[in-house]
């Protein structure tokens, strides 16, 4: 059987903020775009954040309209729960073989009513809430997910069929299997994003075993209005913390982990969280242990100075070790860099590790674009062409091209869209002019 085929000008891999922006910037110029996202919803890491620096806009207010625009754009084919499995060169362009994983839910009929979710007996630690909250084996991924449809997690299902019984539209379909299709494209933009330093990476910090030592993304969820507890509570016992400490460079600028680079966003997210915390918990003491404060972006230094003026304590010190006292309070051992490296110990209710950004995916073998020593995609001439990879027609944006914040990702996506558009134009003029392209057939997948 011939595979379903989709013809587009540009394929975007990754539906986080960088991928969405690149898709919109290309589609707005009139190019046909396919956006492939491996998760059940687009939105990426950004949609799980609380408020964003330096404007303190609620994160949803920036992300969800872009998600909506991507879903509604007449030039964008949104392909969620899909992964590119193979890539071939094809007459100056590329053909991608894509697999769509079974949702076990008929997407077209699902209204996102969540009846199935309520009926499902299986509670699982929610990835979206970084394990602190729960979700069900069949679920709409999160409240603002796009598309608003349920997905059944077959790996954590007992096949009891309760969801099927309650679904008012008969959407549950256990007979679904993976589907495959091809995307013919001229250009590709990689926006494969990042993961953060794993919890167990730092043995000195308890290797993820301490309940009250969390990472920055967990704090984002605690601060988010849709967060798991509805308040900022420590995960160990639900206590409202009085004393919160941030450990900067927890996974960045750390030769022992082989990660020597600066992750670029951690200073600002820690300061932002500290400011939000002092709003949510006005009586709490907040300390940030840092080596260098790197608030380099537009308005960032002013943001930092505001945080200092608010009474957030900044301590230049390297946290050498974290232990737990008998009440499960984390105890930090700090080398005080401003006091001749004197060692002190301080106890806090909650410690937040400002974990760094690691490449989310190595596209090397599949896309033929090499990763550099730092694991991010190589950009051969970063000064003049910051989104161009070593392979013609393949561009990179967002954290796939190295750690960067949301503002810089959005701008780089504009650049990638510009480069991809110029590449598409040059390609189209190479293709025989007489060959009428005709209207592109967009298969429904």
């Amino acid at each position: 059987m011939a595979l379903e085929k989709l013809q587009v000008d540009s394929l975007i891999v990754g539906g986080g903020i960088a991928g969405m922006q690149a898709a919109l910037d290309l589609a707005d110029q009139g190019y046909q775009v396919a956006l492939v996202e491996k998760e059940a919803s687009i939105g990426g890491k950004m949609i799980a954040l609380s408020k964003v620096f330096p404007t303190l806009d609620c994160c949803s207010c920036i992300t969800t309209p872009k998600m909506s625009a991507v879903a509604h754009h007449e030039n964008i084919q949104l392909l969620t729960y899909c992964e590119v499995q193979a890539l071939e060169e094809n007459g100056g362009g590329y053909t991608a073989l894509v697999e769509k994983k079974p949702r076990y839910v008929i997407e077209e009929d699902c209204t996102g009513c969540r009846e199935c979710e309520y009926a499902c007996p299986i509670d699982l630690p929610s990835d979206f809430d970084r394990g602190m909250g729960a979700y069900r084996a069949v679920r709409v991924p999160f409240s603002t997910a796009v598309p608003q449809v349920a997905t059944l997690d077959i790996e954590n299902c007992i096949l009891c069929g309760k969801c099927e019984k309650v679904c008012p539209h008969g959407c549950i379909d256990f007979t679904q299997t993976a589907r495959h299709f091809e995307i013919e494209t001229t250009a590709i933009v990689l926006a494969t994003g990042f993961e953060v330093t794993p919890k167990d990476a730092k043995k000195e910090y308890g290797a993820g075993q301490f309940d009250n030592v969390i990472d920055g993304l967990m704090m984002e969820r605690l601060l988010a209005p849709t967060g798991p507890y509805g308040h900022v509570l420590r995960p160990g016992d639900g206590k409202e913390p009085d004393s919160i400490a941030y450990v900067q460079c927890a996974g960045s600028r750390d030769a022992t982990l082989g990660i020597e680079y600066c992750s670029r966003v951690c200073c600002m997210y820690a300061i932002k969280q500290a400011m939000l915390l002092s709003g949510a918990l006005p009586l709490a003491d907040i300390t940030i242990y840092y080596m260098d404060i790197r608030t380099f972006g537009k308005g960032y230094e002013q943001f930092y100075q505001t945080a200092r003026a608010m009474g957030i304590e900044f301590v230049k010190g390297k946290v050498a070790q974290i232990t737990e006292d008998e009440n499960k309070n984390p105890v930090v051992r700090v080398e005080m860099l401003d006091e001749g490296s004197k060692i002190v110990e301080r106890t806090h209710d909650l410690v937040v590790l400002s974990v760094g950004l690691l490449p989310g995916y190595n596209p090397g073998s599949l896309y033929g674009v090499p990763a550099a020593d730092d694991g991010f995609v190589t950009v051969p001439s970063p000064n003049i062409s910051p989104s161009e990879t070593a392979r013609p027609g393949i561009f990179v944006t967002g954290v796939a091209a190295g750690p960067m914040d949301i503002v810089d990702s959005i701008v780089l996506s504009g650049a990638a869209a510009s480069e991809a558009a110029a590449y598409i134009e040059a390609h189209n003029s190479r293709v025989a002019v007489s060959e009428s392209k005709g209207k592109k057939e967009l298969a429904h997948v």
Partner: protein
Amino acid sequence: MSEIEQNQTPPSEGQEEPRIAVYTCYCGGNISEVVDCEKVAEAVSKLPNVVISRTDMSMCSDAGQALIEQDIKEHGVNRVIVGACAPSLHETTFRGAVTRAGLNPYLYHHVGIREQDSWVHHNDPEGASEKAIRLLSAGIAKSRMLEPLESIKLDAEKHALIIGGGVAGLRAALDIARRGIKASLIEKTPFIGGRMAQLETTFPVDEPAREALGGLIDRVVEHPNITIYTQAELVGLHGYVGDFHATIRQDQRGVSEDIADAAMAACEIEVPDEFNYGLTTRKVIYRAYDGCYPSTPAVDWANCPDGRLELTLDGKPVVLENRPETIDLTVGAIVVATGFDLYEPREGEYGYGILPEVITLPQFIRLLALNGDAPLEWNGRRVKNIAAIHCVGSREVDGIHEPHEDGSLNEYCSRICCSALLHTLNVVKDRYPDINVYDAYEDIRTYGRGHEDLYIKASHQAVRFLRFHNEERPTVNRENGDQPLLTLNDYLTWGEEIEVPVDLVVLAVGVKPRAIDDIISMLKISKGSDSFLAEVHPKLRPVETAVPGIVLAGTAQGPMNIQESSAAASAAAAKVSVLLGTGEVELEPFVAVVNHDLCDGTGACVEVCCYEDAIALETVTVNGAEVQRAVVTPANCVGCGVCVSACPNLAIDVQGWTLAQYEAMIDAIVGELPTLEAAR
């Protein structure tokens, strides 16, 4: 999500009775943490014509928008109001949603209850809730009087003007040209390439700067869609997106290729060479550097007495004169790539201007370039010890730093200096391993990809780092000895006072906004609180100004390194392509309209209007008689409304912003609050 549905006014057939839906957004807590959104929604639900009043965590989300669409389709809603963040952020989002549901986008009205309510009345939640009700009531009052409008479609000139020929301007021009749009680039100086040409090597990839820049310049010069004007400045602008009329003044180059070298040799006037930041001099007929573009030398008219230059060539007197030309360009969009200025330290700041040993980092970079591999000497002495100081003219704090002449402080981080300085110090250590280098900093900000390697390398090369606190910055003095002395409390060693005698002090000066007030006022764009040019929103519209069709590229917007400037420029080019790609732009329909039943041809409106061909008296036939009536040409009307107040007969209004709508809004603001359930 809560909902209150009422059917006070049954849908009537034929006539358009307003059926208003009001949505009060929680804004993820931003609004609901202060404003009692549920109470607000209940209160406004009592107002006439309101058929639906709901709240939602995030109206701008897909689900929120879907809700609006559903209400329009299922409940016959024909007016929509969302109370949320500032209209500048999401008004267009919601207009899109109502359009998808088949409603005219101008039947949507946005009420800002975040920036102007919840965010400024934290201490008065009751008052904030009352204010939200009154603002929404005003919105509802206006909404009842809204009429469907059609946007104005105009042909757009597929041609962009790029102001500035540095790396950002070049990159933007190239990307725009590659999309099939004409690009005219104007550069104030006689040579393109900007500040990148002054660098020897770049970071994070260590490559000769002029090679990378040269590659870009070659592509720009070769591109058929690009025209370059050097020694050219914008002197006038009018029009609007799609149809800007720019007036450019271009100086004459002054010398032709055939006599250029002879003229240069014959020229006797020498001035400080800004390319080397005054370390050397150059003639007033000059090339910026070997291999510059254009390669023909140019006359620096500003430094020629009376704008004339007299030379003797082959024994004959020759007079060179500047006869500037005026060029008119019609463009659809404008890219502002005017770059940055360097911070000039005050006299005496770290000894600058008093001690000849104190120079700036850009000067030092030029010094190293001029010096090549020769032993490094400065001020007649072999350099053995160098001190570098970070954050000069950056991160200034009120109360610690003295304000500048205009009362401002450079509170921002200049972003590029840490990496540029460490890159340069590594060049020093590579070239002169015996020179001792001290580096005084508060925070090292090697944030970018590959930048931390510069810091690591400097540490490995035995650059001695010293850390000061912002409130006790280092000092540089010459006391008794002949060498300047760097003094600071080093917090890497218990805050003890350290004194280092040095031969050269390098100040990592920050960047500051260019003095381009003339361009800013011609373009009617605005500056942010840091005085760099302001974008609409750093995440929603990061390279656009509030003026449609005018975008920002590079350091005009704020400190950026080369890589970031290129990215911003390409992003700006993408926006230009979106605007001009189709050859048509859409304008908001908010223009003046004349009610010919009320107009009696006084011409008062024509008299006050400052726009060419926007409103005129024309002869029309009314009831068989030929009379004079005011007629508006929408494409030329900016919708300012000056004519509205001038009309003695109240015959003119700006559609979408009518006087009657304002009166209704005021009545709603002062009106009785809807009574809520007795219990409250």
